[in-house]
Every structure is written in C-alpha cells, then in structure tokens.
C-alpha cells in the first residue's frame, strides 16, 4: 500500500491533550513519526519568579491537575532545604499521606484511560467509580478534590483530626478489595492481554539510554525510585517496596502501576495509623538565602525535578521544572516505530503523558548562539524526529 499520513491531534478524541503526531503509515504499520509538543505554553516558571514563596505554591500546584501535590511538595521541599528549615514529623506524615493518595488516584485514572484506549470501557467506568473513594478521602482531608493546597513553606496548611483519620482508614478495606479485582482483571481478561502484551516493549538498556523514569522505567526492570534512592519526607522510615517488573511492555507498566496502588495503600494506612503528634508547621523565614538546589520527587508518573535558584529575597530568581513526561517522550517515539496504527493510543497512554505540564521547552543548539534562535512563528516546536 502507499504511504499515508495520519494526523493525530491536537484535536482528537483519543488524546485529550494538546499534542500532534504526524504518523506516517504503510497500510496499518507505522514507518515514521513526528511529534509536535508545546501547544499550551503557560509561562508558569516566569510567573513563579514574580511572586513570593507563599503565593508561588498555589500557582506551582497548577502545573498539573493530577500531580498537583507533587509539584507543590517538590518546590516547598527545595525552598525549605535552602532555608535550612526542618519540618515537623506530623507535617511530613501528612504530606506523605496526601502524596500517596494522589498516586493512588492517578494510577486508577491511568488504568481507566489505558482500558478506554483499547476499547474496554467497562474497566474504565469501574476504575473511575472506585477512584471517587480516593478523591472523597482527599476532599475530606484537604477540602479539595484536585488542588489540595496542603503545603506551606515549613509544613502543612491543615491538621488531620482523629475523626478524619478514622474515616480515611474506614475506606481502605473497600479499596483493597477493588485493587484485588483489578489485579485479577488485568491478569485474566484475554482481549486486554492481547492488546497489552508485547506492545510498546522497552528493554532495560533502552529504558536507561532514553532516560525513562517512573513506572515506565520500573516496568523495564530499572529499579529506580526517588523515594528509595534519594529519600525525602518519611519514606526511609516506613515499610514499603519499589514495584518493578521485567516485561517492559504495556502489560508490565500496568502491573507496576497496580502494584504501586497497593503499595500506596499500605503507606497511607501505615501513616494514618502511626501519625505522630506535635505541630504541623515550623516557623520559616520570609526570605531564603542565596542558593541553588535541584529538588527531586517521585510523582505518580515518575521523577519530577525542580531546579530552584534563590537570591536572598522572598522570591525565586529562577525555577525550572522538568516533568516526568518529558523524560519519557523519547521512549514513546522509539516504541511506536514498526507498530500497527491501532497501537498508537495505548503506547502513548502507557507512559501516562501529561502534555500541558510538559509545555516548557529549552532550545538546545550545539555550538550556536542561542539568542538569535527565536521560536518559529507558529509557536515553539518541541522535540521532533
């Protein structure tokens, strides 16, 4: 057959996010691919430089609707480290609880989306129903379903009352039972297995060379998790395991994520049961001393890194955000070549892409003057092949 170009996005029912793929196919098989990112540059980094730390937190939380707590935590963690402020144990536990609840709801959302991409809408409806239990818990604890706004420089905004802890713990057995059901479904549902097994395979070496992070890397057998390798909050004190898998395909990524939901549930339960007393905030100075820091955090999608430079005022001089999606993109392009067109949605979804969060592009040009290299008139163009 002749080669045809199938445009996918930026408006497409499969991809709710602004990204454009120009897929060149030979019949149903993909032979070439061009990715265009960055349709929605929001200027959050610049805006963050104009505000003091207290007002940066709600802003930086809005980098992502799913990993909102991740961005706020990684930012406040960095600022606190520059300031030399040690946050109280109770605040650390509360941050961990919110972080792991966030991971649970993110992975459940992903599982539904992945099922929807292969046309299995029943699982989609079920996971999103059960995800409501997690969102309800988050709403009870923080007052919000999406942007929890729990962080403050030096601690957390809200304390947890004993009745809140009790109500959250009461939800855990139901969720535990649902997670077991998903494990069964993912391992037994034959049509889903045929769509997930051997699709989007990434070997351990490839995952390392493409710099994949998060569940994408862990599904290829890369034992890398910031929570274990560069522990923050209370992850070095509580019992939990890094979930890895050796399949390296979409099936492996599904197994890793479901395993992580179960691990997160264990962490939330442990933290709720062993919540220490004491204050929830430490007194933090208004301004931070001059310094630079690379603050790292394991978001649901993988490692998120904030580079922060302070200059002795109450504002950051520079904050640079690297989201996990950017780290995983190159592996997607690699996985897609040679696959049938029908695999595009599921392979793209397998890294759990968050594209608007990724829309900040550094122009890299070797040996040239960067100043003259203005973005093209149609808006900044991202990584393309």
């Amino acid at each position: 057959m002749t080669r045809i170009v199938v445009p996918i996005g930026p408006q497409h029912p499969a991809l709710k996010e602004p990204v454009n793929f120009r897929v060149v196919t030979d019949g149903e098989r993909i032979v070439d691919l061009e990715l265009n990112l960055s349709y929605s540059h929001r200027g959050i980094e610049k805006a963050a430089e104009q505000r003091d730390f207290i007002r940066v937190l709600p802003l930086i939380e809005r980098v992502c609707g799913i990993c909102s707590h991740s961005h706020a935590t990684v930012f406040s963690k960095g600022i606190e480290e520059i300031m030399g402020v040690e946050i109280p144990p109770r605040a650390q536990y509360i941050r961990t609880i919110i972080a792991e609840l966030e991971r649970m709801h993110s992975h459940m959302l992903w599982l539904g989306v992945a099922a929807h991409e292969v046309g299995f809408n029943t699982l989609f409806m079920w996971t999103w129903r059960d995800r409501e239990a997690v969102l309800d818990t988050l709403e009870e604890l923080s007052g919000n379903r999406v942007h929890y706004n729990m962080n403050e420089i030096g601690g957390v905004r809200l304390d947890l009352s004993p009745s809140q802890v009790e109500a959250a713990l009461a939800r855990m057995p139901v969720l535990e039972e649902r997670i077991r059901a998903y494990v069964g479904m993912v391992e037994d549902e034959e049509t889903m297995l045929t769509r997930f097994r051997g699709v989007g395979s990434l070997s351990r070496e490839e995952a390392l060379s493409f710099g994949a992070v998060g569940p994408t890397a862990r599904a290829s057998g890369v034992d890398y998790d910031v929570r274990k390798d560069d522990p923050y909050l209370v992850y070095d004190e509580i019992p939990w395991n890094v979930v890895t898998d050796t399949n390296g395909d979409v099936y492996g990524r599904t197994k890793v994520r479901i395993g992580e939901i179960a691990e997160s549930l264990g962490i939330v339960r442990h933290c709720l049961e062993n919540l220490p007393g004491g204050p929830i905030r430490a007194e933090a100075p208004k301004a931070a001393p001059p310094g630079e820091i690379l603050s790292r955090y394991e978001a649901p999608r993988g490692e998120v890194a904030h580079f922060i430079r302070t200059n002795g005022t109450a504002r950051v001089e520079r904050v640079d955000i690297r989201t996990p999606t950017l780290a995983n993109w190159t592996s997607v392009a690699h996985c897609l070549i040679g696959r049938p067109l029908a695999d595009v949605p599921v392979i793209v979804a397998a890294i759990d892409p968050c594209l608007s969060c990724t829309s900040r592009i550094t122009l890299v040009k070797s040996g040239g003057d960067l100043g003259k290299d203005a973005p093209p008139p149609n808006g900044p163009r991202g990584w393309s092949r």
Partner: protein
Amino acid sequence: MTDPFLLIAYILLFPGFLFLFAYSMTFEFLDRRIVARMQNRVGPPFFQPFADLVKTLGKEVIDPRGVDRPIFDAAPVVALAAVMTSFLYVPIIGPSPLAFQGDLVLVLYLLTLPTLALMLLGWLSRNIYAAVGGIRAVTMLFIYEVPFFLALMMPTLMAGTWSISDIMAWQEEHLCLAILQPIAFIVALIGLQAKLERTPFDIPEAETEIVAGPWTELTGRRLALMHLANETSAVVGSALIAAVFLGGLAFPWTVESAILSATVGFLLFLAKTVAILLVLSIIRAATARVRLDQLNTIGWKYLTMAALAQVGIVLVMMASGVGI
C-alpha cells in the same frame, strides 16, 4: 396469504418495516441499558434511541469538500433498504409468506451490503480517518464472513433445504440445531458480533484511533439512516440466528385458538432474540477491542477452523444417521 392487502400489511406493518423499526429501537435501548448496568451506569431511558434518531434526522447535512454527493447520499439508503428487505424473508411467527428455496443466501448477501456501503462512505468521505476505517471495515469483512457463512450454511446441510422457513420447520420435527451443531451456533454468534462491528470487533470505528472511522463525515440524515441500518441489522441478524439455530424451541403444548398460538409464537420470537442480544451485549461489555492483525488470527485460525470442523462433524452425523 395470497391476498395482496395482507401481503402489503405483512411487508409494511407487521412483521415488516414498522415492527422492525420499533423493535430495533427497543433493541438498541436494551443493548445500551444492559451494557450500562454492567458498567455501573444508569443507562438511557426507553425513548432515548428514538429521540436520538429524530434529532439526528433533523440536523444539518454537511458535505465534505469534493465529495461525490449522489453516491454519498445513496449509500446509507441502500444499506437501510437492504437490511429491511432481508427481514421479510426471516420467519417471525410462522414461515415467511415470501419464503423460497435459497432465501438464506439472499438474506446473508443483503446483510453484507451495509458493510460495503460503509466502506464506500469511508472511501468517499475525503477524510483520512474515514478512509482507514473503510479499509478496515472491508478487511474485516473478508475475515469474519467466511466462518459466519459456513456456520449459517451448516443447517442447510442437515435440513436439506435452502429456505430459512423450511429449516425452522425441520427443527420442530427434529431437534434444535443449536444442540445438534453447537460449534456452528457459537461461530455464528461471534460472526454476528463482528458483522455488527461491536466490541471486541469495533475495529473500523475505533474511537481512540481513527475518531469514528467511516462515520466521521456522516451528518444529519445520512448518520441517522446509517445508524438505523446498523440497529436493524442487529435485529435481523438475531432473528436469523434465532430462526436457523433456535427454531426447535417451540411451545411444547398445542395452543388452541389461532390468535393465542400466534401470540405465543411471537413471544417466543421476542424471548429468543433478546436472549441472543443479551449474549452480544455481555460480550460487548466484557471485552477490549482487538487489533486487525489479531482478528485475522482469530478469524482464520480459530473461527474458520471451528466451522470447518463442524462441517466434518455434521457430515459424519448425517452418514451415521444421528439426529436425523
């Protein structure tokens, strides 16, 4: 039923077009409702399919640039007409008055037309998603049609007739063909699911890959008619399988009054078709969409082989006189 007035009533009212229309709306409602309940949703109210149809019929018809209008307009009408015609030969209560030797072949061919119309629509749409979807639809046709036809031809082998009504009558004297030929029955059900392009065989209209496939550029009455053709196909396909494989499931006692007997027969027809729909809906809710190359494997390696094995079994059974 030689009276021309009765014949016209049969074609237009019951169990002809009007009943088919009403029943296909009910069928769609049941299908959507069953799947919704399985997915933990509420599902649509009873009149929703009808409301959808009326609304789409009234919507503006938009022509894609450079489209061949006459054929683009005609294809949905042809598809709907083909399906509605095929229903006249399917026995509902008693044998169809239009029955003749070979009407099974005619019905099978008429049921293929909507797929061809879909392919044509996809090709004419001047849209890459529609074109890919159209090609997928016709590729799929070559995969599922062989086992589907084989499965539905098997009863003719045993009953020794090419008429659906005669096959049904044969079963009432002997045994239900779903019991005599269970493999053919299952293959026919799977083939019907593929024919109706329902999950796991909704490859041509895979929403997440190619938007809506051949349906992408359909608007207004074209969309409504094509949708209606699809829904009526579901009814005709279920009725066909009910007649060919479940014809023996008659009411065990003789009912005296002719009207009462017809009512019982009609209720039996409803029960059989809804039972088939239930199976199809459960498959739809419980599976993910397979890929075209995977369908190729399923179709040729398993379904066709199973159908061929059934042919062998039927021949052996006929030679040894079992079930006849």
